[in-house]
Every structure is written in structure tokens, then in C-alpha cells.
């Protein structure tokens, strides 16, 4: 049952990163790719009807984490206190950046919200990447299951880590590059003309960087947290994951070259899922490794899970809720399918 909920939370996180990832990425390239007012409106219209729903995956995943693994939620949220609060501020700024921008036509007003939207999107991707880096690297958990990490210490991995060290900065950059490509490809799918060309070119030039960072990231992860290979050694099927990751990178470059934007976007989504599943597979059954005395202090799905009865009951409503949620998303994406147009209602 714990394993099932571990997979459920992992799937919800992956859904969040794939979905909100493209609108975060669209925000990151927003000022660079959208040269004219009309192009910027097209970017906003491409993500406008769906960004809020995408972000709900974060809240739903957070709520599900709270429900299924209360101690993990309590420990990690209080331990990552400062960066999480900054994530909240950035999410707030980004939300008003998208939604309030259109309420006035004054260029100063619009320019201000454009800047807020772009900067908060960039910072959020880096924060999320660094957060994942922290989870993989491990944190200084105490015997009571709690910890508190300062924002940074000496930028080295080891005993007294901060939120930011060279490894988590690296994972932050990987996230930024990954989601920049992901967002560019989404905008390429949704637009035509110069914007379509330009976003595809962004993805094209980011691709070599993404490939190099993927390899550097895998090596660095193995260096920082050597135990990540244990699960792979026990279950050879795990080696499929890096194959999928590299394969999806191959699909991406092939499709970008052929200007098959949808295929390239799918490749990027698969890449993200592969990376996240790879991390989850490596950690399992640990959910937050301790950097000191990992054998006894690490939080696992077993020592953090809620009671059996609650988990069983939850399965019933979760399945029902997900059927509904997926239904809404299919309907929404179908309604707004195709290239965006500037005429009519919208952002």
C-alpha cells in the first residue's frame, strides 16, 4: 500500500512537471522569444487557459503527499522552510503576472507584469530543480525526523549542507534548460510563423546543452549519492530508464530537425518523465535520505506513511477524483487545440 502511494505521488509530481513545466518554460523564454506585443500575447494565449489547471497538479500532489506521508510532508516542508516560502512568493507573483497584465493597456503596466512573469518563471524552474537535487543528495535529518537547512553554507556537499551547493545548483540549471526546451517546444506546437520558427530554434540550440547536462548530472548524482545505483543493480529492468531518457533526447533532436513540433514536445515530456522516474526508482523506498547516519535516520515510505485504513479509503476517492481531473484536462486541451489566434476572447 505504501509503495502504491509512493507511485501515485511520483506520478502526480511527474504530471505537474510535464504540464506546468511547459508553461514555466514558456515564461522563461517569454521575453526572449516574444519580440513583439502580438507574439507575447500569443505565448500567453497558448498557456492562458491551462496554466492554472497545470499548477493545480502541484497543490494536488502536495495534498496527496500530506495525506499519504504526513511525516515526510511535515519534515521536508519545515526543513526547506526558506526556499519553499520563496517558491510561494514566486508562484504568487507569477500568477498575478499572467492574470493582471491584460487588465490595462498602458505599456508601463504591461511591461512590468511581463518582467515579473518571465523572472518568476526562470527562478521557479531553478528552485524546483534545486529542490529535487536536495531530495536526492539528502539532508541533515535528526533522530526525530526533522531538520532545518539554511539557504547555503559553503556550497560543498557533505555534512553541513545548505539548500544550495554545487550539486543542487547543477540540478537547478538542468531543470532550467530542460523546461526551457519543453516550453519552447510547446509554444512551437501552438504557434505559426516567426514565433514558431524562433521557439523551435531555441529548443535546437538548447539541445546539446541538455544532452551534456544530462550526462554530467547522472555522473554527479552517482558521485554525490553512490547508493542511487543499488536499486538498479538489484532490478536490471531499471536500466531501461536511462535508455528511455537518451532515446527521448534522440527523438527530440530528430523531430526538431524535421520540424515535427508535436513529436518533439512528446519527446521532451518523455525525457522529463524518464528523469523523474529514474530518480524515484533510485531512491525507493527512501523518500528523504539522511546525510548523516542514512541507515537509521532516512525517511522511507514505511516510517512516514499514514495509517493503513486511511490509505485504503483514500484509494477509492483518489481514483474517482483522477478520472474526473483527467476528463477535465482532455476536454480543456481539446477545446483549445490547434494554433492560437489573436482574434476573439482571451489574454
Amino acid at each position: 500500500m505504501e509503495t502504491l502511494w509512493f507511485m501515485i505521488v511520483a506520478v502526480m509530481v511527474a504530471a505537474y512537471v510535464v504540464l506546468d513545466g511547459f508553461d514555466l518554460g514558456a515564461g522563461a523564454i517569454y521575453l526572449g522569444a516574444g519580440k513583439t506585443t502580438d507574439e507575447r500575447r500569443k505565448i500567453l494565449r497558448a498557456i492562458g487557459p491551462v496554466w492554472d489547471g497545470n499548477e493545480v497538479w502541484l497543490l494536488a500532489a502536495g495534498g496527496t503527499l500530506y495525506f499519504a506521508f504526513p511525516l515526510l510532508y511535515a519534515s521536508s516542508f519545515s526543513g526547506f522552510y526558506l526556499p519553499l516560502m520563496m517558491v510561494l512568493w514566486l508562484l504568487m507573483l507569477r500568477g498575478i503576472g499572467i492574470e493582471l497584465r491584460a487588465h490595462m493597456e498602458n505599456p508601463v503596466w504591461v511591461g512590468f507584469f511581463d518582467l515579473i512573469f518571465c523572472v518568476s518563471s526562470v527562478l521557479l524552474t531553478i528552485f524546483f530543480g534545486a529542490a529535487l537535487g536536495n531530495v536526492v543528495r539528502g539532508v541533515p535529518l535528526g533522530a526525530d525526523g526533522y531538520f532545518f537547512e539554511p539557504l547555503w553554507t559553503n556550497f560543498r556537499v557533505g555534512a553541513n549542507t545548505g539548500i544550495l551547493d554545487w550539486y543542487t545548483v547543477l540540478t537547478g540549471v538542468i531543470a532550467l534548460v530542460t523546461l526551457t526546451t519543453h516550453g519552447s517546444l510547446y509554444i512551437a506546437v501552438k504557434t505559426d510563423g516567426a514565433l514558431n520558427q524562433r521557439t523551435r530554434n531555441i529548443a535546437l540550440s538548447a539541445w546539446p546543452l541538455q544532452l551534456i547536462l544530462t550526462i554530467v548530472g547522472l555522473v554527479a548524482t552517482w558521485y554525490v549519492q553512490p547508493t542511487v545505483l543499488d536499486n538498479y543493480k538489484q532490478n536490471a529492468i531499471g536500466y531501461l530508464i536511462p535508455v528511455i531518457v537518451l532515446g527521448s533526447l534522440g527523438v527530440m533532436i530528430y523531430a526538431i530537425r524535421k520540424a515535427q513540433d508535436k513529436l518533439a514536445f512528446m519527446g521532451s515530456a518523455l525525457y522529463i518523465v524518464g528523469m523523474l522516474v529514474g530518480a524515484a526508482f533510485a531512491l525507493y523506498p527512501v523518500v528523504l535520505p539522511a546525510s548523516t547516519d542514512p541507515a537509521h535516520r532516512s525517511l522511507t515510505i514505511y516510517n512516514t506513511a499514514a495509517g493503513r485504513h486511511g490509505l485504503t479509503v483514500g484509494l477509492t476517492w483518489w481514483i474517482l477524483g483522477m478520472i474526473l481531473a483527467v476528463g477535465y484536462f482532455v476536454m480543456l486541451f481539446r477545446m483549445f487545440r490547434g494554433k492560437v489566434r489573436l482574434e476573439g476572447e482571451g489574454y
Partner: protein
Amino acid sequence: MDSALLVHRIHFAFTVTFHYLFPQLTMGLALLIVVLKTIGLRRNDETYNQAARFWARIFGINFVMGVVTGIPMEFQFGTNWSHFSRFAGGVIGQSLAMEGVFSFFLESTFLGLFLYAEKRLSPRQHWWSAIAVFLGSWLSGFFIIVTDAWMQHPVGYVKVADGSVQLSSFWELVLNPWAWWQYAHNMGGAVITGAIVMASVGAFYLLWGKFEAQAQIFVRVGVIAGLIFSTLQLFPTGDGQGRMIAENQPVTLAAMEALFVSQSGAPLVILGQPNVEARKIDNPIEVPDALSFLTYRVWKANVQGLDAFPKDLWPENVSLLYYSYHIMVGLGTIFIAIMGGAAFLLWRGKLFSARWMLWILVLALPFPYIANTAGWITAELGRQPWLVYGLMRTADGYSKMVSAGNGMFTLLGFMGMYMVLGILFLFLVRREIEQGPAAEMSSRH
């Protein structure tokens, strides 16, 4: 202010108080917009559609504010109240996760359609999207109330070996009688906010002499909804909520009424200042025996005063609890009077020319917000010193790893952020009100 407990309490109190200024209008307006759209659809009357569209624009701005200030609420259970989350997550994780899964997806999907796709949808489809937004926001309120009601009156749980509580009965949690009274009372409060805001803006246009066709609709719908729901707020929902407190939290009732001494035929204090040190009410204006009657339906019934309980079970802030409760009840009574008077004039066909009454409606605007806020302060202060009533004290629930200094840093951050949000909100809503309901959908870029 160096106490981490105090900082974390203020942190949550500040962020949740500011947050709830928005959802109360969201939930209230969601219902009223459905009413407007239903009439518009049935009578095929474009004025009603314009009225609905105007409120949809205000709703959109209000909704954004509610969403961005709402995200920190879910996070703070973990960040600032991690010991509470570890203790209670096995139970209230259910209702909080269900809010995300059942209401947020519904709301966010259909809000986009409701606000930005009216022309893509048929009128009937657009009406359905309004219904979906209404359902989503009211479901969201329900799951939050289930969570709060469990903290007020824990049910459906077992204590397990590691000291935490875990769910033992899903249906007991969801059918908690406290939750249903509190939900009814809370949603009534939200509709009153929506109704008074709608009537107030309508009255403002009538006094201004602009947009009269739509303004009359605003006033009519606002006054009728306001009368219905402010009456229901007194009875049965307020009464029912009060009896839940009398049964399950008698010390809270004593503190709300500032009844220091147990007595039969306890008076109801209408006005007066509690003097906690001297354990009496200064300058009291009282109705003899009324508290006994309202609580037990018997004029000479014995009501337990604060002296019947050890002091470490008293809510810590008796005077603020007393004032917030009395402000809520006092304003609620005034709303019934205002809405009753306005409804009478409406029935006689004189309301739209009764300028004095229109002025009262305009000036009523801030008061439902105050009443709703005071009501929540009553609920949350009344539960003190408990975080989960009878199970966990507030002093044991905060994040011990997050120092007062770190808490203060983010509290100040939120204060600054919310000041900006508040200014933006007022600025944008003022613009919408000035443009009025007859304006075309503001062209969005």
C-alpha cells in the same frame, strides 16, 4: 515577539485572514452569478447577461487573489505547523487532499472556460461552466470546513503507538455534525458578503445615475439574497453552531459571552467591556436570563461560567474572543434589519428612489467582511488553547525547527506582498466598477 510560537501563530492568522477576504466573495458571487445567468437564460434577457458578465470580471480578479493567497495556506501546514501535521496528517490529510483532487481541478478548468470562452460555448454550455465554478468553490469550502471542524471537534480517529492520530472512519470525518453546522453558517456568511457587495455596487450606480437597468438587477438580487441568507444565518445555522459549542466546548461559550461566574438565569450581554482581571463586565447592558434560554431553551437553566473550568483550559484571549463574537452577532443583526428594510421598500416599489436606503446599502459594503472575519476569529480563538480540541495544544504544534527569526522574515515578506496585492486588487476593481456593466468585455491583450 521572540517567541517562535507567537510568530508562527501570527504568521498563520495574518495569511489566513487576508486570504479569506477573497474566497468569501468568490463563493458568494459564484452562487449569485449562477442566479443571474439562470434568469438571463430563461428569460433570454441580455441585461441579465450583461450583469452576469460584469460580475464575472470582478469575480475573475477576486479569484486570482484568492488563488495566489490560498496556495500558502496548504504549504503552511507543513512549513510552520509541522508537528501538528505529523500528529494529525493521517486524518486531515484526507480532507485537504480531497480539496485538491475534487475542487481545485474542477474550479481551475471551468473558470478558464467561464471567463474566456463565452463565445466558444453555447449559452447553455456557458451556464454549465458557471455551475461548475460554483460547485468547485463550494466544494473547496466544504473540505476546508471538514478540516477545521475536525480540529474543533475531533471524530473518526484512533490514537496510534507513535503518538499520532489516524483515520478510523471516513464517514465520521465527513459527516461530523460540527462540520455541517459550520459549513452552513460559513457559506451563509459568504453569500451575505456576495449579496451586500452586489447590492452596494448597484446602489452606488443608482445614486450616481448610471447603468440603471443593470443596477436595479444588482440591488434586487443582492437585497433578496441578503435577506434570505442573513435570516438563515441567525436561525437555524448560527443557533445550531452555538449549540455545538455549548455542548462540546462549554468553556469557549463562557469566554465568548464573558460569563465569568456560573449561574442559573444567565444574562445575555449586549454591550460592555470584559474586565478579565476583575472577572466582571464593565458598563454592561444585559438581557436577563436570555443566555440561559438561548443555550438550553429554559429561562432559569444553569450556564457554566469560566469559574467552572481550570484556568489553563480557558481560551487565552478572552476579551478579543468576546469582542469578535459580539461584533459578528451585532453586525449579523444589523444586516437582517437593513436587508429587511430594503426588501420592504423593494416590495412596495420604492427602493430605487429611496436615496437614504441606497446610501445605507452603499455604506454597508465593508461590514460583511468584518463580520465574516470576526466569525472566524471567534471560531479559532475559541478553540484555544487547543490546536486539536482536547488532543493537541497549540503550543505543541508549530515547527520547532523553524526559529522565530526565520518565521519573522517570511511574515514580513508576506505582509509586504499582501500590501501590494491588496492595492492592485482595489485599483483593478475600482476600474471595473467605473467602467460599469454596459461596457463590452474589456479587450484583453
